[in-house]
């Protein structure tokens, strides 16, 4: 790069080039060379500044974005951790509630409740045909006769609800009537009936979990 600049590179006019090729004393005139070089030098310097600014700003932006992302991610993982905690608490609550109702849908619990209400399992069925109103089957009336005794002789145990009082008869479980002490009546002297469950005011009670 230290080589002497050629005429073409310096952008001289053909006339000036011819002058440049002239003997040395002519070449050493400084005025023309400065005049020509000035303009490109100015053009080159200005982009450099812009690029510099862009690069620095870009680097700062990347740095900032990385920090923001990192903060968001940390924030997110705290959020996630909180929500996980909440989910765990809720799933515990769900499990507790499921444990509470397990067995309530079993046939023996339903049948014991129905029997306590005086319902019976009837014998041979009769059907009413809607198209012509015909009665199919014997059409007999059941006089309180049940083919099985689902409460008095309950024989299909279910450990999940063996101590759960019946909905229709709080004095009985699926294993039959529980023994009720006769002096329970004296306890009721202060106004309440002992075996009546407390009334629900705001929905089913929810177990406390943390």
């Amino acid at each position: 790069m230290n080589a002497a600049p050629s005429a073409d590179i310096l952008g001289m006019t053909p006339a000036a080039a011819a002058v440049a090729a002239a003997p040395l004393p002519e070449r050493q005139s400084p005025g023309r060379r400065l005049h020509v070089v000035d303009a490109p030098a100015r053009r080159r310097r200005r982009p450099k500044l812009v690029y510099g600014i862009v690069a620095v700003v870009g680097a700062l932006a990347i740095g900032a974005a990385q920090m923001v992302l990192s903060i968001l991610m940390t924030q997110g993982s705290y959020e996630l951790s909180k929500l996980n905690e909440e989910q765990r608490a809720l799933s515990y609550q769900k499990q507790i509630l499921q444990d509470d109702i397990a067995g309530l849908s079993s046939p023996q619990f339903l049948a014991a409740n129905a029997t306590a209400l005086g319902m019976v399992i009837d014998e041979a069925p009769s059907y009413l045909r809607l198209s012509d109103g015909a009665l199919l089957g014997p059409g007999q009336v059941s006089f309180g006769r049940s083919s099985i005794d689902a409460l008095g002789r309950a024989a299909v145990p279910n450990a999940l609800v063996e101590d759960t009082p019946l909905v229709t008869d709080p004095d009985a479980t699926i294993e039959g009537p529980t023994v009720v002490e006769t002096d329970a009546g004296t306890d009721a002297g202060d106004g309440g009936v002992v075996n009546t469950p407390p009334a629900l005011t705001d929905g089913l009670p929810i177990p406390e979990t943390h």
Partner: protein
Amino acid sequence: MTTKATRSPRRRTVVALAVVLAVLAGFIVRLVDIQVVNADDHIADSMDRALAGARTLYGERGSIVDATGQPLAGSIMLYDAQLDPSNVRTIKRKDDDGNTVEITWEQSSAQIAEITGQTPEEVRKVVEDALAENPNSQYARLVKGLTTQQYRKLADLGIPFLYFDPHPARAYPDGAVAGNLVGFVGLDGDPLAGIELSEDDCLSAKDGRVTYQRGADGVVIPGTERREDAVDGGTLQLTINRDLQWFLQQLIAEQVQDMGAQSGSIMVAEVETGKIRAIAEYPTVDPNDVDASPEADRGSRAFVNWFEPGSTFKALTAATVIDAGGQSPLSTVIASSDERFPNGARVRDAFAHPPYEYTLTGVLIDSSNAGISKFSEKVDPQTRYEYLKRFGIGEGSAVGFAGEQHGLLRPASEWDRQTVYNTSYGQGVTTTLPELVGAYAGLVNDGIRMPLSIVEACTKADGTVVEPELPAPTQVVSEQTSAQMRTILENVALQANYARQVEIPGYRIGVKTGTGEKSDGNGRYKAGSYFTTMIGFAPADDPQFVVAVTLDEPTRIKSSGANAPAFQKAMTQVLKTYRVMPATEAAEVLPKFG
């Protein structure tokens, strides 16, 4: 124009570049070494040294549901509590007012005991025993199988030396309903009996695992989590109807008690599909509380016991002589109540009577041993043996229940002079309840015996449905023979001495009883003790269900009449459950005598 001045900067550039590349190469080599070559070691190191955490992801064992989708078995979580005896000490805690209070071990053990249902002394003894054995002991099991509620209450006490281990367990929402079939799993989760055991491939889950690193505050560091998901077990649907199953269990329990029997069972199968709708047994097991039942009551007697069937086999013999011996329901033989046969065999009836000219129908109505023995001579013993095989006697069922047994039918060549006749009325041969029900279902289903099944399908966690593979149906007798047998058995229901007991108003049914002898264990029959059976089908003109009731050693009534009330109620309930319409045509009545 390369001068020293121009060469020197270029060399500098090259040298600088080379240095940069060398450093870069060094980094790359090290990077590959860290990330690829020794990656596993470093991960292991990080797991050891960093605040690493790991957790087992429990797969949920599949549920068992009945034919209508109601759950019979499901999974729940139970918790084991452990103590760290070396750390047991007085703990300090801030109360609601912000004051620090001390809670002594005496107090906290009382709090623990209140929740676990132990006494405070028992809780303290766990710790004392552990410390006596090893003063630095860090582990002592306090109690197993806590419910979620108990676990949360204990966790809320905030006792640092008390910790918990969750593990999946089984719950059976319907208790003893189908407990004999569903079976149960042990405390460690291993299936021990019934369908839980035989269908474990469908039900079992695969546990997963998640590992991660935590910051000092316990929060998982993003990007460090490694997860291997658990695979849940499949949902197993049975052919059982749980409401019907419950009714029949209650019914057979009452009947066993009323008759003073040792045990009893009721089985219901759908004729056209072979699907078992109920197998009720008493006594039986509540899988929620297995320990409450004696060992012998924890399985299914219907599948694991075999018995001498007695007279229920007369229908199979009658079908054989109609199908292969050219007989009809009105063919006759002369039979008295005590017959001697030319080969020296002697056959007696349960009641004394002079020689009657019995029709084949009449032989079954009166359940005459002598009569069916005479009819059995219409075909050779080998043919009868082959028909019994086709009926599935001695073959077991297609169910493949855990521990299922099969009856014993010896080849005809091994039948001695007496056995040749005895087998025609169900002696000298044993069978199981599923075999007998399968045989009757084939007998009345136009002669097509469907393989019995108890599993509808297994729906895997990924949604694929696997249906059990069953053997092909068997044509046991011709369609015409089957129709004639339906008429004969319907006439048994109409004319037998227990006809009024089994009558279901509005419906036509067919029925046959059997009173099987019991072995005394010394190669002789046990005197005065019988295994009684009543098996029937409805509707008689287009059978949909076969119902069988068995009682083991009834004592109030020793004959199969003991089964009649339960059979009538069971069949009525089956017809109601499946909305089978009452009959519109009258039965064809056949004569008993020729």
